[in-house]
């Protein structure tokens, strides 16, 4: 009898404690939603993004002594602006479809009550998912979709940290004109692009920009993504033999192009791979040895030891079991830290306050993991200081070679390959 009573009392006490703990805990956790392609054709990218988010949250919540020297939020113990509230990432799968992207965003906002959303990788999904966040008045941060129209919709809750296609185009044309000035032949440029949203939008912006910059695009080859064979395309290139080739491809085709160019023994003097599949860790690992001197763009370059980027790169390698940060994971991680900074500055998990804090965010290049000139949003929510680096494959790793101010290595041309 007494035993039973004691047990009841203990149970009530536990319940009360749980209840208290629950409410106290609720104040101490800020939820951030992330909707990424964890299945479908971009599953590989989505899973790298997921690891970046988990690592970011771990750094804010549990701290990292080395990083804390250069990054105040990395001291551990959560967000100081919210009395040490922890960040909880709620990650959902958009399955690579706009419908699932929108459904999951709605779920995170209404069921999980996230304070903000970071989303979605594919531009089309970003377009549909952000419409939900806009209606519910939840800050929506996009880390990597480059479609120009996303910031042209008059949305009040939409922010984007990544540079867009026009920024890449400017970087490439400046870079190529510099090569021309240095005496290299840039008389014929071929653009090879896959035929979904990414390849189509980037290639048309590139062609426009090159036209204005006086760079002759002599060949434009569109192909369907996930080809079974790319020999005809490479043979077309081989026949025209352009000075510069630019590939805009996803991983599957990137692997085939690298293999096929070696099979058919053809290489241009300057080979540029616009990010995408050529930056996928799986590509770098498998094809790095046969694409020595490949030029790519990336917002990420590890830089000198002790920098924010270098430390995070090492941590990420531990997290993934060997793969360092790349263009996409660095952009994702950057968006996470921008959001953490904004929530901390807002001093609240209230969406409206977070949005105001995002509008006021100002971050310097040395605070960043991505190689931007900084983070500062304009009225449309675009990060006006977003920029890109140009990198080159050296011994199976990308190193930054342009612009000069951020280069860690000298550019070596012509393209060496295998």
């Amino acid at each position, binding site marked *: 009898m007494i035993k039973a009573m004691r047990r009841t009392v203990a149970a009530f006490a536990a319940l009360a404690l749980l209840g208290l703990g629950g409410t106290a805990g609720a104040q101490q956790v800020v939820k951030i939603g992330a909707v990424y392609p964890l299945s479908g054709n971009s599953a590989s990218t989505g899973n790298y993004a997921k690891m970046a988010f988990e690592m970011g949250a771990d750094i804010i919540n549990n701290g990292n002594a080395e990083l804390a020297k250069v990054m105040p939020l990395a001291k551990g113990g959560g967000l100081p602006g919210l009395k040490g509230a922890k960040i909880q990432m709620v990650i959902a799968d958009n399955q690579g479809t*706009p419908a699932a992207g929108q459904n*999951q965003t709605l779920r995170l906002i*209404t069921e999980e009550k996230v304070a903000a959303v970071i989303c979605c990788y594919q531009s*089309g999904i970003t*377009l*549909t998912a952000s419409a939900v966040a806009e209606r519910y008045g939840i800050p929506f941060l996009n880390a990597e979709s480059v479609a120009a129209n996303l910031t042209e919709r008059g949305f009040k809750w939409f922010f984007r940290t990544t540079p867009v296609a026009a920024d890449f185009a400017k970087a490439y044309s400046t870079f190529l004109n510099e090569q021309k000035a240095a005496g290299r032949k840039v008389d014929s440029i071929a653009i090879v692009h896959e035929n979904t949203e990414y390849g*189509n939008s980037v290639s048309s912006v590139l062609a426009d920009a090159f036209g204005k910059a006086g760079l002759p695009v002599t060949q434009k080859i569109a192909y369907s993504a996930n080809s079974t064979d790319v020999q005809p395309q490479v043979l077309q290139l081989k026949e025209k033999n352009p000075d510069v080739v630019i590939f805009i491809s996803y991983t599957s085709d990137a692997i085939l192009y690298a293999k096929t160019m070696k099979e058919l023994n053809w290489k241009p003097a300057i080979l540029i791979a616009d990010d995408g599949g050529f930056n996928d860790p799986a590509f770098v690992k498998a094809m790095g040895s046969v694409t020595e001197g490949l030029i790519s763009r990336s917002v990420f370059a590890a830089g000198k030891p002790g920098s924010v980027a270098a430390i995070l790169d090492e941590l990420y390698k531990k997290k993934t079991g060997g793969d360092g940060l790349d263009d996409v994971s660095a952009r994702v991680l950057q968006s996470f830290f921008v959001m953490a900074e904004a929530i901390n500055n807002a001093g609240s998990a209230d969406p409206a306050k977070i949005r105001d804090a995002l509008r006021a965010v100002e971050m310097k290049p040395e605070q960043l993991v991505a190689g931007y000139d900084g983070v500062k949003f304009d009225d449309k929510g675009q990060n006006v200081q977003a920029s890109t680096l140009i990198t080159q494959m050296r011994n199976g790793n990308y190193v930054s070679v342009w612009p000069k101010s951020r280069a860690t290595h000298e550019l070596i041309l012509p393209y060496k390959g295998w």
Partner: protein
Amino acid sequence: MTRYRLLQIVLVVLVLAYPLVVAGSPVWARLGALVLLAAIGASAWNIVGGYAGQVSVGHSVFFGIGAYSAVVTYTHLGLPPIAGAPIGMALSVLVAAVIGVPTLKLSGHYFSMATIAVAELVRVLSSTSEFLGGAQGLGGPPVPRGVLDLSFISATPYYYIFLAVLAGLLWLTHMIERGRMGFYLRAIKDSERAARSLGVSAGRYKLYAYMLSAAFTALAGSLYLTMFGFVDPESGFGILISVKMVVMAALGGAGQLFGPLVGALILVPLEELSNSYLGGQGAGLTFVVYGAIIVIIARFLPSGLLSLLDRRRPTAPRASKTVDGHAD
């Protein structure tokens, strides 16, 4: 009979009251709307795939035409997207005639494969079309300009719109089922040769069924666009859209009035819930579970879930029909 009637009334009331029951949860309200939308597509497919037995695996052509008609009506004419629905339906009927005349001659799997090829053809071509926004796709009004844009925060209005459309479609299907056309279609499905020898113009009736099915599939596409506000070649013409229509109808019971709805009632919540609870782990577990459940249902109930009911009713219309896949 009275108990049956009572059950019917309870079901109708439940369906009508569903959004009010789950009013507190936008996710559940939306789930209801998604089930109905999927049921419209699958029921439309059912007319030609289920009743006439012509297994089209390329119905995404019509779904995409519906969705694109709606969005083009907005982007190029500035009208509310839903105004494009009749255009999409008319266009689909036309396209169905063009595709149907040569392909409906084909028997069994050849017809299925031809429809897949046509759908893939249209998908590739759509991604090269400037007018349709190319591979980037097109978006509807980002911010609703008025109630006619049918762009709502809450899923409840969509639920009732979709419910009305589905009810209309099922009523129409029911009338066909009971009428002469339904009789002809069943005859064609059982044995086309026998039907022909009885003087049924098999080709004509198959084409009618195909065109009617196309029109409503297009309507499903237009409704999809008003709700999601975006379409690109993959989400409009992708092969998965066709396959899902087939799978939903087959799972519930193809060639039966409520088969596709039952299929949608199982598959859509299964997909959404498994994605919500398992998707975040990022290991593809969603589809492992989803796939396994489909396999199990196909294994034990190859004629669909509604065949469970048929077993109790000895005079089921097609319970004994087991080998039509091998008839050709």
